[in-house]
């Protein structure tokens, strides 16, 4: 084991995958110069460890023009004909530029062609929310892609998961979209130095508990853990589950946990309507209704756009305080913090995280 950052773990997974298989290539904007820190050593280690361009050469590390539609489409075509591309799309907000290729080609080609095609391709992107980047760079769009059968969706929340899940993504013969949380980039954790992979569709129980199940996604995971620690002091035992992959989703683990605790809070940084939280809530309502002792509560980003000002943005995402309040609500405790954050107008307040 060694201690690695989330970003470092992604870089390590990419390097190991490139070393393991010559068919793995990395394409994207500014990958040669390692602008985002995953195609070479990062920080000080960059000088001695070298960049991927030096390690793997310009045939396999390819800077692209700013042309997301053809970057995504060409990666699909390349995957259908023998390569295993990793596409670095930098910001998740840029995926929309290539929506046709994701939805009409990546997701459908294997199916439409009766299984003739396999598409071993990974689309990496980072969600820069919570960093005052404004409405055009703060998206958390994974639920949109959950609505597209044929894609696999990965949302790692720790360095260990980031490395192991990315390796599985590269080794999988289906198109995978990984959504990395920028706010987690610097977070550190224990990571095996050797190669390993984490199977898709297996949730991780981050913390065991008996009173409430909190299913948390991406950056909401550490917030849920922090909330659970606080709640433990109040005598409430919280189980925190990180699904790690949204497609496939470990429904069994979630249902099993709720059947023990009888209560569910879902913390999801995506917009509320048709969020991952909405889907998980619906599944539990369908499959574990008899176990529920209280209504399911979602803690999500309200259905408003992301404002620039730090005074406005911070309040919008699920945090330990909102998650704590939600848990208190489902356990029948009085909510200690006013549920409506300041600055959210009346129209939105009904949808505000609480």
């Amino acid at each position, binding site marked *: 084991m060694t201690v690695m950052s989330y970003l470092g773990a992604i870089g390590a997974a990419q390097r190991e995958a490139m070393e393991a298989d010559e*068919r793995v*290539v990395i394409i994207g904007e500014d990958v040669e110069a390692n602008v985002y820190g995953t195609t070479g050593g990062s920080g000080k280690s960059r000088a001695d460890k070298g960049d991927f361009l030096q390690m793997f050469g310009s*045939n*396999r590390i*390819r800077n*692209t*023009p700013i*042309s997301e*539609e*053809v*970057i*995504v*489409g*060409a*990666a*699909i*075509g*390349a*995957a*259908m*004909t*023998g*390569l295993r591309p990793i596409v670095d799309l930098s910001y998740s907000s840029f995926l929309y530029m290539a929506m*046709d*290729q994701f939805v*009409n*080609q990546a997701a459908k*080609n*294997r*199916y*439409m*062609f*009766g*299984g*003739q*095609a*396999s598409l071993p391709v990974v689309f990496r992107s980072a969600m820069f929310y919570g960093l005052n980047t404004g409405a055009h760079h703060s998206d958390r769009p994974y639920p949109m892609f959950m609505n597209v*059968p*044929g894609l*696999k969706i990965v949302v790692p929340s720790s360095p260990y998961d980031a490395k192991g899940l990315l390796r599985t993504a590269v080794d*999988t*013969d*289906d198109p995978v979209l990984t959504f990395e949380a920028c706010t987690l980039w610097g977070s550190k954790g224990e990571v095996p130095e050797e190669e390993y992979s984490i199977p898709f*569709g297996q949730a991780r129980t981050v913390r065991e508990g008996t009173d409430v199940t909190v299913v948390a996604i991406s950056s909401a995971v550490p917030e849920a853990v922090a909330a659970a620690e606080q709640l433990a002091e109040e005598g409430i035992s919280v189980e925190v589950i990180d699904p790690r992959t949204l*497609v*496939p989703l470990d429904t069994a683990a979630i249902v099993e946990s709720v059947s023990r605790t009888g209560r569910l809070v879902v913390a999801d940084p995506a917009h509320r309507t048709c969020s991952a939280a909405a889907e998980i809530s619906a599944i539990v309502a369908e499959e574990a209704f008899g176990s529920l002792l209280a209504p399911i509560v979602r803690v999500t980003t309200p259905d408003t756009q992301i404002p620039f000002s730090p005074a406005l943005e911070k309040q919008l995402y699920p945090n330990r305080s909102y998650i704590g309040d939600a848990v208190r609500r489902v356990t029948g405790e009085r909510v200690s913090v006013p549920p409506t954050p300041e600055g959210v107008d009346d129209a939105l307040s009904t949808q505000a995280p609480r």
Partner: protein
Amino acid sequence: MSLTNEELLEMQRRMVRIRRFDERASKMVKRGQIPGTVHTSIGQEAQVVGACMALGDDDYMSGNHRSHGHPIGKGSPLGPLMAELVGKSGGVCGGKGGSLHLADFAVGSLGESGIVGSSIPIATGAALSSKVLGNGKVSLAFFGDGAANQGCLYEAMNLAGVWQLPVVFLCENNQYALSTPAHTVTSGVIADRAAGFGMPGVRVEDGQDAMAVYDAVSTAVERARAGDGPTLVEVVTYRYNEHSEGLRLGTDYRNADERTQWLERDPIVLFRRHLVETGVATDEEMDALEAEVLDEVEQAFQFSQDSPFPDPEVAFRDLYTEPIGVTS
């Protein structure tokens, strides 16, 4: 670049196959034997086959909604194609693609696309894999004059140009996108757009001449295979049928004279005459070839009728390489 007599006859055979296959498909739509509609390549056979014959068996190709000619031109057997149009289990895609989404990976056909322009990046990516793996394969993207106004074409041309990818962009300019005359929505000449990307742009003015198409595409393919990068080839041609079978547009967007003129330049008639005049084949041999193809199409039809419909459970297969379980 000169073809053997055998190859010349194969060229004619494939053109006749497309014609008879599409005539049959058209009839089947009218009789309700094909659910939905189809887009025929009738009239455009020289443009399709001239291009396909310039490719090797292992080369890649992607196409569009005018979809039957491309795999037939690349050598795909007719039975599974016909069965696919009917939605049968013996279809080339097991009944999950239909007319719009034919694909036959066995002949390098990476798939036809129902989304105009959408398959151009796919062919570009196939060229990328050839380049990275160094396997010498060339890739060709078929698309229409309508698709020539999609942005993804220009993203693809730029990427192919800057990476010197072995790809041929083949614009089938049949002069209309559905009811819209190309000149009313297209600024300048399509082939001229290549210059902006530093690649050759070739316009084949007589796309009814199979050899003219073959020559132009062969030059582009050789260039690509030699590592010299992409070419844009625009082929001027004409579709004889309506945009899609069964479509009745209230407006007369194509005038009758124009159609008559193009009918006089029927690519199959022209090439047959060429083969007979140059002594490659006799009229009797040509008649025999046409009879053989008719028989092939009849057998393909029989195959499509005899093949069973897929099990309902097949709708849940092939989403992923390993099934992940779908809740119905």
